[in-house]
């Protein structure tokens, strides 16, 4: 038992989250419906504790603690993502509280699942073994399937859950197949052994190449990169808005974190091959995401395509890292992805928070036209949405601009100025649909035929989430230094 003592200590944050998840699910049946709020506050409390432990877990930036015979590591890179994920999950829970009540699906197990998904994500970002990563991914995905179908009375929600499950299971299978091939090559699923095996067998081994492609496809599904994005619009639209938020920010960040670790630490020897593949995928992703978003009338669907496009921008940073030359190597590129995704969480969280609370009569107003005239009735809410939309479009002085600045800087440094130019031209395309939301809010009057004009239901928890989101967007837009240096330091442990 003492053998595992240090190991368990290393996994303490994950354990806290998982235990709290079980506790919430056990407590749920014996909690009266009127006091279900307590479950949410319990979860938030656990996350706060977890955040504190994670932040203090490593003594110095270059420390890399291995646990469970090198299945997971505690390093600065994992810590960065865990802090982001815990923070985002906490805010999502606060956002869910009023939303679920308004939608009359305030179920206790929701908080259990969100914590289970988080524990899966935390395993994903800290494991250095393909099977452990797979376990984390599955724990996250299975929880998300359930949460997507939470609104059992809505056919769209159930349809989204079914679609998500089928396609997700399929992609997991592909991922697993790739892992098994790599196991055949290296005799181990540890990233370090795989890197070693690739070093000795050479980069032209067809088995390794096939496995790389399979892993790229599997992760492509999780990242919602084109052409593996098909599930995203339906699932984002059908899932309850709080779950969509969680998917768009936390699941995407965790998938990127694991994806980068696998390809840099495990398959780094094949950089030249897969960087070309991801270069192509990144262009396709941002072109398709931005162009198709234009024609959407449902704002959740529009943000689904926008999230696809943002994955494309983040992938540019990753490609730049793979092609990076010189003394700094891939560091600026990888750090730019971390900066980009962290900043993306703030604006997306804020945008979905506004959407989730827009009520039209008794139901959720999720058409873009439902925002008509919001600026006249609720100027503050409209202004916040304006800030989030400007940030998503990458207009300074918001955080979105800083994110793009770092990604494109890495791209230009890696000699991909043309790619930055293409990406920025499609940022103009994206500005069109983001500004359309602003146009509808500020320049159009509400539809006179509807007797109940859409309005925003506010609550203290929601106001707190919105305040955090807008503070993040503006603060990091004006003073990105703390985040940038944190990301630049954290990325150094990735090798």
């Amino acid at each position, binding site marked *: 038992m003492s053998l595992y003592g240090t190991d368990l200590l290393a996994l303490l944050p994950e354990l806290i989250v998982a235990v709290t998840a079980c506790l919430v699910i056990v407590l749920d049946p014996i909690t009266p419906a009127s006091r279900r709020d307590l479950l949410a506050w319990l979860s938030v409390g656990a996350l706060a504790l977890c955040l504190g432990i994670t932040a203090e877990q490593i003594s110095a930036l270059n420390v890399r603690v291995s646990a469970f015979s090198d299945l997971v590591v505690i390093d600065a890179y994992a810590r960065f993502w865990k802090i982001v994920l815990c923070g985002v999950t906490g805010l999502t829970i606060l956002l869910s509280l009023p939303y679920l009540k308004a939608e009359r699906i305030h179920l206790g197990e929701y908080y259990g699942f969100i914590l289970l998904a988080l524990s899966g994500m935390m395993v994903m970002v800290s494991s250095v073994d393909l099977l452990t990563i797979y376990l984390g991914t599955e724990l996250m995905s299975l929880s998300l399937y359930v949460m997507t179908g939470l609104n059992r009375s809505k056919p769209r929600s159930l349809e989204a859950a079914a679609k998500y499950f089928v396609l997700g299971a399929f992609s997991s299978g592909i991922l697993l197949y790739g892992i098994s091939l790599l196991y055949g090559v290296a005799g181990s699923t540890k990233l370090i052994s795989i890197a070693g095996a690739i070093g000795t067998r050479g980069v032209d081994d067809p088995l390794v190449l096939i496995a790389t492609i399979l892993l790229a496809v599997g992760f492509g599904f999780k990242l919602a990169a084109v052409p593996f994005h098909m599930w995203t619009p339906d699932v984002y639209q059908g899932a309850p808005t709080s779950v969509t938020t969680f998917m768009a920010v936390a699941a995407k960040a965790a998938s990127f974190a694991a994806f980068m670790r696998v390809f840099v630490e495990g398959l780094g020897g094949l950089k030249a091959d897969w960087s070309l593949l991801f270069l192509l995928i990144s262009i396709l992703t941002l072109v398709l995401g931005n162009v198709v978003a234009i024609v959407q009338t449902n704002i959740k669907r529009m943000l689904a395509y926008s999230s696809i496009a943002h994955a494309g921008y983040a992938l540019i940073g990753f490609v730049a890292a793979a092609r990076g030359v010189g003394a700094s190597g891939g560091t600026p590129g990888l750090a730019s992805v971390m900066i980009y995704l962290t900043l993306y969480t703030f604006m997306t969280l804020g945008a979905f928070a506004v959407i989730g609370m827009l009520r039209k009569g008794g139901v959720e107003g999720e058409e873009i036209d439902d925002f008509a005239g919001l*600026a*006249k009735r609720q*100027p503050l809410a409209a202004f916040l949405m*304006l800030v989030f939309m*400007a940030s998503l479009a990458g*207009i*300074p*002085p918001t955080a979105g*601009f800083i994110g793009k*600045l770092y990604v*494109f*800087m890495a791209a*230009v*440094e890696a000699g991909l*100025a043309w790619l*930055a*130019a293409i990406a*920025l*031209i499609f*940022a*103009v395309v994206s*500005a*069109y649909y983001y*500004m*359309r939301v*602003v*146009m509808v809010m*500020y*320049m159009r009057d509400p539809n006179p035929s509807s007797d109940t004009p859409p309005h925003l239901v506010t609550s203290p928890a929601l106001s707190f989430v919105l305040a955090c989101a807008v503070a993040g967007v503006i603060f990091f837009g004006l003073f*990105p*230094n703390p985040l*940038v*240096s944190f990301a*630049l330091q954290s990325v150094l442990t990735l090798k």
Partner: protein
Amino acid sequence: MTSSFPWLSLLLVLPLAGAVAMYFASESAARWIALAATLADLCVALPLWWLFDPQASPMQFTEHIAWITAPPIYYSLGLDGISLPLVLMTVGIMPLCVLASWNAITTRVRGFMAVLLVMETAMVGVFVALDFVLFYVFWEAMLIPMYLLIGVWGGPNRLYAAIKFFLYTLAGSVLLLVAILVLYFYGGHTFDILALSQGTYPASLQTWLFLAFFAAFAVKVPMFPFHTWLPDAHVEAPTAGSVILASILLKMGAYGFLRFSLPMLPDASRDFTPLMVALSIIAIIYGAYMALAQVDLKKLIAYSSVSHMGFVSLGLFVLNQQGIEGAVLQMVNHGITTGALFLCVGMIYERTHSRLIADNVGLAAPMPQYATLLVIFALSSLGLPGTNSFVGEFLVLVGTFLWSKIATAFASLGIVLAATYLLWMIQRVVYGVPSPHHLPTLRDLNQRELATLVPLALLVFWIGLYPNPLVSRMHQSVTNTIDSMSRAKVAPTAHPSAGGRGPLLADSEAQLTTQGTLR
């Protein structure tokens, strides 16, 4: 000349503070707060005119604070003889915009004034930023306020005009960002505008960068054929929006060419000169012809802007002292004159609710003061000697004459056409046979409207009769710009060591050898 007092930061902060105050203000107080904030900004800016030392090193009132450490981006501000008149013009125009919107804006006054004030901060920021990323932040930060200004408080077709303006200018400026990042890696890992202006870059790179800069600045100027957003935006924008667009926003494109394209990319600028001159002359003649055909007063002035801004870009790209000084002078003149003309149109629109020439005929009898001022500004716009535009256009044409006589002949055609469309407009609007049903309701200018127009009329004559204070302040900076271009030509492009030359001050000896100084 480092000044310990942060003049420029104060210039930036005051309007922003006013905009924040709008959140707590009432609708009726909003106008007074906006007026107070813009006047306070003017009071801060005016001393700079006298504190500015025309003979001293290029950048004055500098501030230099680290903003982002990796990559090194600075909150770096400064003024030279080129930006000083533009900053003064900006802060001078803004109180007039507030006054012009006093009664014209009746809905969401707080929001309107807040947007105006945010615009002021961003516009001043563009002219004083000495860090390329900081410049870009201010440059792009203007987009959303301007979009709202046109889209919320504009005319009937405002949605189309607003998004057209937004997408055109954004599309132009995103390539600027790529160019900035490329320059960072080629120019010694710095975003410092002055340091980048000292660097030497390979010829092919310069060509690409020049095109990227051109995309951003030509849309803003706007140069033919990127001008199509301008008539729409001008016509649909509220009066204050039109004035800001014409007086200040258009100058940013020209400022960009002068501050970035010429000193950073001298070889490409020289290579592209024939094309730039050709586009400028096309803009001069085409804009004037289009203005001739307009029946809407705002559209007429919008197209006259295209024509007049053609003189500015012409003056810049003939690349000599007279041309560039004329261009800078013309930037200020156009800001004053065209701004005033848009204010005049706004005032008549408040009375007759029509901008059509046909509906506003024969105003001399009912509105003598208005008619007098309109004639003054129209004569200034067509470049009558004794008014401001004459000095600017004359200098531009002298500069062009040194470059090519044929180009001068074509450009002069623009002045003739300007006289035609403006005098024709005056003939109808001021002295035409009045249409009886409008007359009884028309009252002449009130105190507020006189306060808006008279300062501009005084500036028209002051610059027209005694431009020396203005020209002497910009002289040294224009000389520096031209010197930095000729120096980069001397240095072979393959020598990266040429980029390591000292600060701009070191060039003052070389200035003696520069050709073609007027004075």
